[in-house]
């Protein structure tokens, strides 16, 4: 009986490993969940489940599994690294720092230090970020991160020196991608487009780069060009909420609401936490007279973007809720006026 059970576990475990190797992450998740259910006190199974969830881009659930693993195995190790990276993916850089510092104690590899630099940078702890990126030496990512950190610290000379070194590195798709990031953070969206054009030229089969190129075009307001690139990427990214938001927004702008609405709806359905998409969807619905449906989306987006308050106010006015309309309009005037001056 025990032997049969062992065989069963071994077989499942092998199936899980095979699924991971073959990028069948949903299968791997199912298998490891079953294994964890059978053996809840085996931390390595939690780690494997976490890895399957992380690979399937299910970062909130992955984080939980890594946390459970670390509760059982608290010594610095790969669990800390995975937890830190998951939190970075969840855009919680400040919460990623302690996990990544523990990971550095386990292994001060360039990958760990790079993620730690990103965490410090995202948490606006630019001095620590600069130190982490400096530790990476004259690598593209090290120079880019150090330059951006020094720029945020107001150390313009150090920032310029780092960027100058970065620009002199041998051309590569990675280099142009990093330079595009710098241009984007400087609000030089047109220049970001040029860098990514070059990156795509050097790595024409890299769809991730083409995705970044489409986003750069969208940010730069080059909607016609963006539409072409987005259209070429639909097969791979059609389930990505951010992709659908950006592509949908592009279509709304150049073809009208009807063209982009299905994509915006799909984006919001898959990721209601994507606030910018909800704002775009709310505005689109309002434009075509679906006023009541627009209100919850505009309401959600208004927390982040004051300009959404005006269409929200108009929506309330249109359905006869005049007091709310007046209150929101007053808030809009105040918040937008403050941002203008």
């Amino acid at each position, binding site marked *: 009986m025990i032997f049969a059970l062992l065989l069963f576990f071994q077989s499942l475990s092998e199936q899980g490993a095979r699924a991971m190797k073959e990028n069948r992450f949903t299968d791997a998740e199912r298998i490891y969940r079953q294994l964890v259910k059978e053996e809840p006190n085996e931390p390595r199974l939690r780690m494997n489940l976490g890895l399957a969830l992380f690979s399937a881009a299910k970062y909130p659930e992955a984080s939980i599994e890594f946390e459970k693993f670390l509760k059982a195995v608290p010594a610095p190790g790969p669990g800390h690294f995975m937890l830190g990276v998951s939190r970075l993916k969840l855009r919680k850089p400040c919460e990623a720092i302690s996990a990544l510092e523990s990971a550095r104690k386990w292994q001060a590899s360039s990958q760990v230090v790079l993620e730690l630099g990103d965490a410090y940078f995202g948490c606006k702890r630019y001095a620590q970020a600069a130190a982490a990126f400096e530790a990476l030496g004259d690598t593209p990512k090290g120079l880019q991160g150090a330059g951006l950190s020094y720029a945020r610290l107001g150390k313009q000379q150090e920032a310029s020196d780092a960027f100058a070194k970065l620009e002199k590195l041998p051309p590569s798709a990675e280099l142009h991608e990093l330079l595009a990031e710098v241009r984007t953070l*400087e609000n*030089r969206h*047109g*220049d970001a487009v040029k860098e990514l054009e070059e990156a795509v030229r050097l790595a024409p089969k890299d769809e991730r780069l083409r995705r970044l190129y489409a986003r750069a075009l969208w940010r730069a*307001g080059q*909607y*016609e060009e963006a539409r072409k690139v987005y259209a070429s990427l639909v097969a791979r990214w059609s389930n990505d909420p951010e992709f659908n938001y950006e592509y949908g927004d592009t279509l709304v*702008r*150049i*073809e*009208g*609401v009807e063209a982009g609405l299905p994509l915006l709806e799909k984006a919001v359905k898959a990721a209601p936490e994507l606030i910018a998409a909800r704002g775009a969807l709310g*505005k689109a619905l*309002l*434009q075509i007279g679906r006023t009541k449906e627009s209100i919850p989306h505009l309401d959600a987006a208004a927390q982040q973007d*004051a*300009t*959404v*308050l*005006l*269409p929200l106010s*108009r929506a309330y006015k249109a359905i006869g809720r005049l007091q709310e309309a007046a209150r929101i*309009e007053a808030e*809009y*005037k105040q918040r*937008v*006026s403050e941002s*203008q*001056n």
Partner: protein
Amino acid sequence: MNADARRFLGWFFCFATVPWEMRPLPFTLLNGETAKKQLPASVPGGFAVFDYDNDGKLDLFFPNGAGSHALLRNKGELQFEDVTERAGLHESEFAFGATAGDFDKDGFVDLVVSGLKRVLLYRNRGDGTFDRLDAIDNHGRWSVASSWVDIENDGDLDLFVVNYVDWRPEKERECLVNGKPDFCHPRFYGPTPNALFRNDGGGKFIDISDSSGISKHRGKGMSAATADFNGDGLTDIFVTNDRSFAFYFRNLGAGRFEEAAFDVGIAAPEDGKPVSGMGVDAQDFDNDGRPDIVYTALRDETFPLYRNTGQGFAEVTSASRMSVLSRSMSGWGAAFADVDNDGWKDIVAARSDALSPTGGRGSAAMEPPSWFRNSRKGSFTAGTGWDALPRAMYRGVVAADFDEDGCVDFVFTALNTAAQILRNPCESTGNWLKVDARVPGTRVRVGQQWRYVTTSTGYASSYLGPLHFGVGSAKEIEVEVFLPGDVVRKMVTPTNRTIKIEP
């Protein structure tokens, strides 16, 4: 050539397409741009179209930035001669806009020029020369545009002055766009109040900016459109502001105004993002008898279009497809004009970026002019025939039938290049009628169409001449003219002619 003749000749030349033709005028708009990219260099470009010598032909006055103003006399057949010196207008004052209006009611049209440091008033002496009067004290503010408007219906033209930002050369900052020096964003400059001067006759203007309520509101004004928007018999004023809420000054009578842009739904476009409001025109594009509004803005902001509902304004930028058509454009001058004489007013835009062609966007800052065809069902399509027009830093545009063939032509200014006249090939077979009623505030109905006599149009520009109506196939048509003071003239007239309405 009248419409019947054109139709007849069309049988012989049915496969030939006459292109739109641009001809240079003897005036170059200089902006004095230097490597420092000081903001005033970005803003010139308005001008005035009017008949200064009452010879029945429309002349041109161009204020200049870093050069002398110019008065070009229309000799007919699209020939213009420079009469600036003779007219006493050869002055160099960094200026942006001009507005024509007969403020002293002597039958000769006068001029006001909006400048960086002051507002200049030129009185037309009637002998081909102008006197400069020191009658307008704008407190040293930077004025871009103005409008002559009879605010109290007393028969005197008062002056509304559009002021831009609080700019001081010693405080000018250096800005980078895409890593290159360029003009700074307007957020770096403080807002200023507009001004209103009451015409008390005898060349006296009283500053009533405070008592009228106008100066309570500080903005970054670029242009103004005037009309009786709410139908109460008093002329209201709409002002575009650069990257801030637009103003709608509702005329309360007795020289008082209230700012009501939010009340009437025109303070900001529908997505809530205040845009760089530039040139503006107010005319009735949907033939419902109420003046609508279109204004230009910069790339990715679209050119907002508002339909006057009688209870306020409904934004139709998206519904009319103007949002899709203008999304990639940056515009300055704007005009409602019936390009193809089909009886529906189209929209014309003078285009270019606010940035420098030697700055962050490079030559992409230069754009061609565009027109948008009114498809009669509340929507617009891209106008045809202008694809080959050159790119430039276009600023002002005014529509007028300069060659008297019944079709509107266009004059454009562009930075650091000769002003251009774009001759309408007049291939449309539509008939036309022009109504010459030059009293601001007059409303004219021709069939189902309406036009309003105003002195300001587009970007910092002015037109005071016959109102043009395309009338399609109509051979005669009913005309009704509503002069200020409830004087109504009604008649039925044959088309393809100009009728003059005496006040």
